[in-house]
């Protein structure tokens, strides 16, 4: 069987771009090495930071408008290591909170200035707790902290749960003293009963990241091949050789777009695979092996996305190749495609709006439709009409882009141009009023 000529061209283009060691390296090997490396670094970095945080001791000052017996007890409850229990159980030397109590009465203003006090060039306290006069209406315990200091944030984060536990304990004790069952203090209990199976949760997580990731990857994956095959051709001075082929120019162009599409698809698939492999590992590292219980990847949904993703890659490839064809060198091609890339990625952001659903109307809007369709597909929503509309719209847009690419790029002013087309020149060309040719 003889392959159609455009496939022969695509085959040659693929072969020649894969023979370039560098391209092969960056398209195929890099994702497989890079993502695991990056994820490993992230996990280890988190561990180091976590260790550092746990071993940072913070200092807290405690004052009151009306000092009372309570303050000593409070100071003891707040201080110490993790758990901060009154029994003095400080199991490990981590999450240490040192409390310094000021027994003299202070107003809130005085507490504020105390919180800003410095000792040997360092702030004396990382946070200050100030108890209002309990008799006053709307009395509170003010937690004074400085959001611009990381230690201060740490102090606040350690203080609040300990304070809450202390309050709870006081109430329970008071109830016991009055011979009241402490459980009666709480007339209601609210519980969320999950009805979402973990596969659906996996799908949900995926559907919030993957659509935009797919768009970005398809655009990035098509970027280099498009520039290489369209502008690079001119740079390598092989454009003329190609034009001499006994084929219509459109066939050559179709072949190129096909080659770009397949590279983009392979790049997307490989990237996803590598991310998937290492992300699962990352999750299990972060959750201590419990990740398997919390969600699983919906493989079928991923397969369902594939046809649409390929169609989208085709669309992107056609557009990028058409634009890159206007440039005379690789470098110029890149400069041209930079903004075009944004044209794809910005609308993709619209697609992540929660609550926006794939309606027949949205299904006709390029890029947004893909993002919405990916999301719905991953969540397994049965919107068959919309999917069909979306695919049809994509196909129409892709074919239109191919037509436009052929129409522009097969003009000899463009195909053999020694310099990149200026916008003005392109405009005159498009209006068919080219005085120079």
């Amino acid at each position: 069987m003889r392959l159609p000529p455009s496939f022969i061209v695509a085959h040659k283009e693929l072969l020649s771009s894969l023979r370039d060691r560098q391209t092969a390296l960056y398209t195929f090997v890099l994702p497989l090495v890079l993502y695991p490396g990056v994820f490993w670094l992230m996990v280890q970095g988190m561990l180091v930071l976590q260790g550092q945080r746990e071993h940072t001791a913070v200092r807290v000052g405690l004052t009151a408008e009306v000092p009372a017996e309570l303050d000593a007890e409070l100071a003891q409850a707040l201080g110490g290591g993790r758990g901060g229990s009154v029994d003095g159980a400080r199991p490990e030397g981590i999450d240490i909170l040192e409390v310094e109590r000021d027994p003299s009465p202070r107003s809130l203003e005085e507490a504020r200035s105390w919180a800003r006090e410095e000792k040997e060039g360092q702030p004396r306290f990382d946070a200050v707790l100030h108890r209002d006069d309990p008799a006053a209406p709307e009395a509170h315990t003010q937690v004074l902290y400085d959001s611009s200091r990381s230690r201060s944030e740490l102090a606040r984060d350690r203080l609040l749960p300990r304070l809450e536990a202390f309050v709870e304990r006081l109430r329970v004790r008071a109830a016991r003293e009055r011979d009241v069952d402490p459980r009666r203090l709480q007339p209601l209990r609210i519980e969320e009963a999950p009805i979402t199976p973990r596969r659906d949760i996996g799908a949900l997580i995926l559907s919030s990241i993957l659509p935009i990731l797919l768009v970005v990857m398809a655009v990035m994956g098509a970027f280099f091949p498009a520039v290489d095959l369209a502008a690079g051709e001119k740079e390598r001075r092989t454009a003329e050789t190609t034009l001499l082929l006994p084929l219509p120019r459109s066939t050559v162009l179709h072949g190129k777009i096909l080659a770009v599409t397949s590279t983009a698809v392979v790049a997307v698939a490989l990237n996803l695979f590598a991310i998937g492999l290492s992300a699962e590992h990352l999750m299990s590292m972060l959750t201590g092996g419990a990740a398997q219980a919390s969600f699983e990847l919906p493989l079928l949904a991923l397969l369902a996305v594939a046809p649409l993703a390929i169609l989208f890659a085709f669309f992107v490839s056609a557009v990028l190749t058409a634009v890159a064809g206007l440039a005379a060198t690789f470098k110029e091609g890149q400069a041209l495609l930079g903004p075009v890339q944004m044209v794809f990625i910005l609308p993709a952001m619209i697609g992540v709006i929660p609550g926006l659903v794939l309606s027949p109307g949205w299904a006709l809007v390029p890029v947004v439709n893909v993002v919405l369709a990916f999301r719905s597909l991953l969540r397994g929503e049965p919107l068959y009409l919309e999917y069909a509309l979306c695919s049809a719209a994509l196909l129409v847009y892709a074919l239109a882009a191919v037509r436009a690419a052929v129409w522009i790029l097969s003009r000899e002013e463009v195909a053999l141009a020694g310099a990149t087309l200026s916008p003005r020149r392109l405009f005159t060309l498009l209006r068919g009023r080219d005085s120079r040719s």
Partner: protein
Amino acid sequence: MSAIVCAVLGVELRRLLRDRRALFAAVILPALLYPLIFWTTDRVERSGKEILAAREVSLALDLSAAPPELAQAARDALAQQTPIQLFDLDAEALIAFEENGTEGLDREATTAGRRALYDRLVGGSGQALVTASPDPGFPQRTLLRIYSDVKEDVSREAGTRARHALEELDQRLTRTRRKALLGADPAAGLDPQVIDIASAADSSGAALGRLLPLLAVLVLLSGGSYAALATFAGEREAGTLETLLVQPIPARPIALGKFAAVLVAGCVTLGVNLASLMLCGLAGLGHLPGFTDGARGPGLARLALGLVYLPGAVLICALLCLVCGKARSFREGQQTILPVMILTALPTAIVLQPGVETSLLLAAVPFTGAALCLRDALSGELGWTAALVMWASHLGGATLLLGRLGHLLDGERVFAGGGASSRARGERPSEAHALRWGIGGVLAMYLVGTRLQQWDLSRGLMLTLWVLIPSLALATAWRARGRGSLGRELGLTPPRAVHLLGALLCVPAVTWAMTHLLAWQLEVLPMPSAAADASGLGAIEGWSTPMLLFAVAISPGICEELFLRGALLSSLRRDLSATRAVLWQALFFALLHLSIYRLVPTFLLGGALGALRLRTASILPAMAAHALYNALAVLTQGESPRVGWARAEWMHYLPFLAPLGLLLLALPPRRRLSGGQVEEHRP
């Protein structure tokens, strides 16, 4: 020298400035994009919230089991979450299932059972369900259960609204109940109220400080990479490099001049972008951190303090120059930008983490240190020691990179057989082979080894050690051995008995040194409690002593040695000096353990074992030493050692055997040529 640098700088800048199209794409465009991006994200966020908030949800209720006044209160509270529709149904079956049906079911099965009942009861008529029943733990209390499907946007929204309303109700009821039961609240005045005492400039600066370092890296990379590509790769491509190289000037000032041009381009881009960003903030476009709620940003003086980031910019630009200088063409250079971006952005992303203090250790880490100092400078917290450490480490790193950059502009590299990397590949095939397999080994451990051990610890460990690592060793050695024997390539040659003895005698001293090193490392690099629990013997605690010895002492001793000290080291040694070969394999050994806390100890151990292998011309002493070291570690370390003699008096004297061991090792190997050196030069 400086005249040349200036001349090169001037010309490079002129060339960059005249390339208007690229200039626009790299410098101006991002500055124009900010307003657009801020505006879009802001709109997207807001309209997302609006769409959901405006959505009418329909909520099913079964409050029949609740006391009537409570049911009415809940109904009232829920009705206020407009637009909402409430309807009653009988969820008896679901409540019964929750109370009796879940026994013996795991979480997944419980969810599935609940789901089936929910679908039958509510179906498509409502988006969420609230049921009431007596709390099984305390029947006088009412338990309210909220059922919603988090996967569906609307159902999730319905669930959220229900929770909000009910929690508010809960608080109100609790307060009333407390008053009724206890009279006055014993914890009166203890409810916390959080007050931020940071000054406006400080908090604006802190908010901006979380965004700016990452932004600075990205912008520097965009502006700097365009300049670096034009000045290095572009020059090569335009064919002007040879013109430059025939001039009577050393390559170093040329490289410096070009680097300066890249730095200027990067900094100018940063300046333009920063200005655009600040204008966006002041104009109130989107939610720029530090400019929300009427804040006017941290002020110019604070921003000027941000100059402390300069060494970070210098380092990034030096890295870009080096990468682009290695590239043979514009295109090749462009492809390397993404890895560089990840390498620089990842350590910078640390500023996104809350509660990270700028310790001296972190300040010395490239990119991380600069990012933290910038953050601190903006929030008015800059510590000068940390800043000094950061300047020293970053400028030192940049100097190193620039030193290498000078070499890249050397004619040999430019003209002899293409780019620098492929040259190394062509000239040192064994090194390239070993590096490839080393990286492959680390990846295999990361992706396969850990997975195996997650699946089943003991079987996974055995498979990793006896199947995965030996196959890596064989595969590495098979290709590399050339015409030599596989055994020799792996270092499986009989050593001198005295060497074997010497190696073993040194082990207690190494154990002793390692214990102290680990203690010191724990001070500098404290371990989080979760990791500390996991890194102990943990799950294998229950194993019998012989089993333990086999699994964590003998097996690693044999298998890891085969791969690292055997195959990799032999291959590396063909092309590299002994020191470099040992260092490389030690690095792989360290990375193979996949934990940052074991990086330094395993690196040192790997280095010592590698040196031992080269010294004794055999892998057996290294195997024995490795196994003994691991055995000592698992038997004698920890809270309650496995063997009685771990705390014995004579244990303290064992390290003093080391001099004797070293003396034995100083005896010459049996043959002059070691396994790794036989085929030093292949034809």
